[in-house]
């Protein structure tokens, strides 16, 4: 066991990659301390809103709007934020940030044990060499220091542990994985898969590859289709740190977890060129403590990890720890979101009454632009989601009708609706940045980030094509009364924020090497979205997990060999 405040490894953050780092480092023999800035969450017991009907909630699911406007005006724009999940989102008042006035930025955070792994949409997609070679091919930013062959075994490793339901398609741009049977689809989705594949042979709609179990897996139960996953899942049907990786780490007897522990900065020892520990502020008592370890894994979420390195500047690294390249805090990315189409599908079978199951996923249409030919006005591509659903009583608000007629009509679901959404790649730009704003501090006195991130010409051209594709595909699906959505794309709102400490081969132009290891400080690893050299268009969590597991294996090897 660890002695006092000294451990073999410290992991900062307990979200989707912090959990993986804890599991891998513990299982590989290291005494490991996980530091989580938020409060503890007990798997199952803390999911107090799970399976609760609307009337159980004080505000019937609408949220305590007057409080939300003060405490969570930004967090409440997050994808799965609602009255039932508000407690798993950070407090904006205590955790402010700033941005250039003309460059709005949305930063969604989950400050609790398990982090945003409780809130994610559970979509799991591999990258291919189309993505890993993209920067090299286009002459943009720097080349990735890894290729698909480097990460493929780690995708296998992660998928086998977390359980990913999906269907193999044999597509080069979206490699197949270790899949459990796919989640069942509904008649509208079956219809769309059929007509879209006939009309667009290069656009293959497939059941979303989802970290939701369709059969018992490592002691976790299959999904019982109860409803909104963001409330927490006490049977562990969806993957989270709490359902899977932290228990695995715990089982080794080598894990220590300290919640309400805000890492203020990393302590650097210039004589040995090592990160030797961390300064922690207790979120409740505000007492300061130091912990030390042989190896540090920063898994605080992309932008928090970058912020921590920036705030760890000292006399040796004046512009931020491990930042001799000056790259730290640059090339911030997110996925473009907000382009979509919805419409009514007639002629599909309707059963009376409410359905009693809930499908916690969508269909996915993998990237089809700039895959085999490069004939578009923009570089890179986008992935689409589509789903079929039937609207409940809510449709009565906007429809004509009153009295007994209205009431009787709303006893049944409305017609099938099709929904299409597109998620586009964003290029890495040197001047899409975050820096520390030393004139604004959070509730614990730590300087906050200042963002200057905006989309450019390539993104605008891609958005126009995303909108055109949504329109032509929903028409091909046979939808009527189509509504097109083109929301302003505020960077950050996809909650796929990434970059800021990119991987690369050259220490002069990148922060991390091919193993998420800081070029400048060999026992310091950044394992989360901060490492990304380009953004791809796939939901990124699976790649973060695979990179983290791979980085841990490398770190332990180097530690054993006495090289760090």
């Amino acid at each position, binding site marked *: 066991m660890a002695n006092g405040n000294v451990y073999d490894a410290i992991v900062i953050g307990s979200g989707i990659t912090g959990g993986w780092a804890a599991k891998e480092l513990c299982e590989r023999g290291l005494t490991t301390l996980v530091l989580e800035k938020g409060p503890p969450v007990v798997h199952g017991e803390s999911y107090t809103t799970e399976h609760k009907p609307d*009337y159980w909630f004080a505000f019937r699911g609408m949220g305590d709007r007057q409080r939300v406007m003060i405490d969570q005006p930004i967090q409440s724009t997050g994808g799965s934020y609602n009255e039932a999940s508000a407690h798993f989102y950070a407090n904006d008042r205590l955790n402010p940030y700033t941005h250039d006035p003309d460059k709005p930025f949305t930063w969604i955070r989950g400050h609790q044990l398990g982090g945003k792994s409780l809130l994610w949409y559970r979509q799991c997609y591999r990258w291919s060499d189309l993505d890993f070679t993209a920067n090299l091919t286009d002459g943009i930013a720097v080349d990735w220091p890894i290729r698909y062959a480097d990460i493929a075994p780690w995708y296998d490793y992660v998928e086998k542990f977390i359980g990913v339901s999906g269907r193999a398609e044999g597509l080069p741009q979206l490699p197949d994985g270790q899949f459990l049977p796919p989640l069942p689809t509904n008649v509208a989705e079956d219809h769309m898969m059929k007509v879209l594949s006939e009309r667009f042979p290069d656009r293959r709609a497939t059941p979303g590859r989802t970290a939701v179990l369709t059969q018992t897996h490592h002691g976790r139960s299959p999904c019982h289709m109860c409803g909104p996953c963001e409330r927490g899942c006490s049977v562990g049907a969806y993957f989270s740190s709490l359902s899977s990786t932290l228990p695995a780490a715990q089982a080794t007897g080598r894990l220590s977890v300290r919640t309400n522990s805000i890492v203020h900065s990393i302590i650097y020892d210039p004589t040995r060129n090592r990160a030797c520990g961390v300064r922690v502020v207790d979120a409740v008592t505000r007492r300061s403590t130091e912990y030390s370890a042989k190896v540090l894994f920063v898994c605080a979420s992309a932008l928090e990890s970058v912020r921590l390195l920036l705030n760890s500047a000292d006399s040796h690294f004046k512009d931020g720890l491990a930042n001799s390249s000056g790259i730290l805090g640059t090339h911030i990315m997110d996925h473009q979101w907000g382009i979509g189409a919805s419409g009514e599908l007639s002629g599909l079978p309707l059963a009376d009454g409410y359905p009693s199951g809930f499908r916690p996923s969508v269909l996915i249409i993998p990237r089809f632009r700039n895959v085999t030919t490069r004939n578009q006005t923009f570089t890179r591509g986008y992935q689409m989601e589509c789903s079929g659903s039937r609207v409940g009583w809510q449709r009565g608000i906007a429809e004509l009708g*009153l009295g007994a007629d209205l009431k009787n009509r709303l006893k049944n679901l409305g017609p099938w609706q099709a929904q299409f959404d597109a998620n586009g790649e964003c290029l890495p730009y040197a001047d899409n940045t975050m820096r520390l704003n030393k004139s604004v501090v959070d509730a614990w006195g730590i300087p906050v980030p200042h963002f200057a991130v905006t989309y450019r010409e390539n993104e605008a051209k891609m958005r126009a094509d995303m909108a055109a594709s949504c329109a032509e595909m929903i028409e091909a699906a046979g939808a009527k009364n189509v509504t097109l959505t083109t929301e302003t794309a505020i960077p950050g709102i996809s909650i796929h924020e990434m970059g800021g400490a990119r991987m690369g081969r050259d220490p002069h132009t990148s922060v991390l090497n091919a193993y998420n290891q800081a070029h400048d400080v060999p026992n310091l690893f950044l394992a989360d979205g901060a490492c990304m050299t380009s953004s791809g268009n796939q939901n990124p969590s699976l790649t973060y997990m695979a990179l983290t597991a791979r980085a841990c294996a490398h770190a332990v090897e180097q530690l054993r060999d006495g090289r760090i």
Partner: protein
Amino acid sequence: MSDPESNPRRRMLERSALMVGGLLVAPAFVTAKEKQRRLGANASNVFTSPQKELVRSLCDTILPETDTAGALTAHVDDFISDTLELWCTPLERRAFLTGLDAFAQNCKSALDKGFTGLSAADRLAFLEPLDRDAVEARKKRVDPLPFFATIKELTLIGYYTSEVGCNAIGYAGPIGTLPGRDGPLNTPVWI
């Protein structure tokens, strides 16, 4: 996704943006008298007695008792009062009350009789043109929405999110969580 309930972002937007016309106004935040912060608990005192009677008549006409319980059994009038006090901004609350008084006045001018004194059939007949206007206003994204659009929305939300309303529709909260239904948790049905 099998139901809009599955997309909480859309659900939240649907419920809040419709009502405030998409415009969030900073509230004058009053916590001095900390009442029970729970909609439908009749903790508020927003209406005068005639206003309360009128709101009850409107709710009862929009969602009357049929083979299932109606809006009044679900205390939708209390829900509306509490929502105006605990959830809406002062601006929205004033707009609602002004709209309510104007509605009462218009009814008297048109029919020479208060709305509450009308027969059920006459109430419906009086509301039908207002309902058409409300639907049109939503389509055109008029801001602020007409009074009747707001009270219809509040009545539907108040009813279908109440225990009475959830049971009436055979469905409570997230799909598949209605206690006591045969096997809803392990026999998913999507059509």
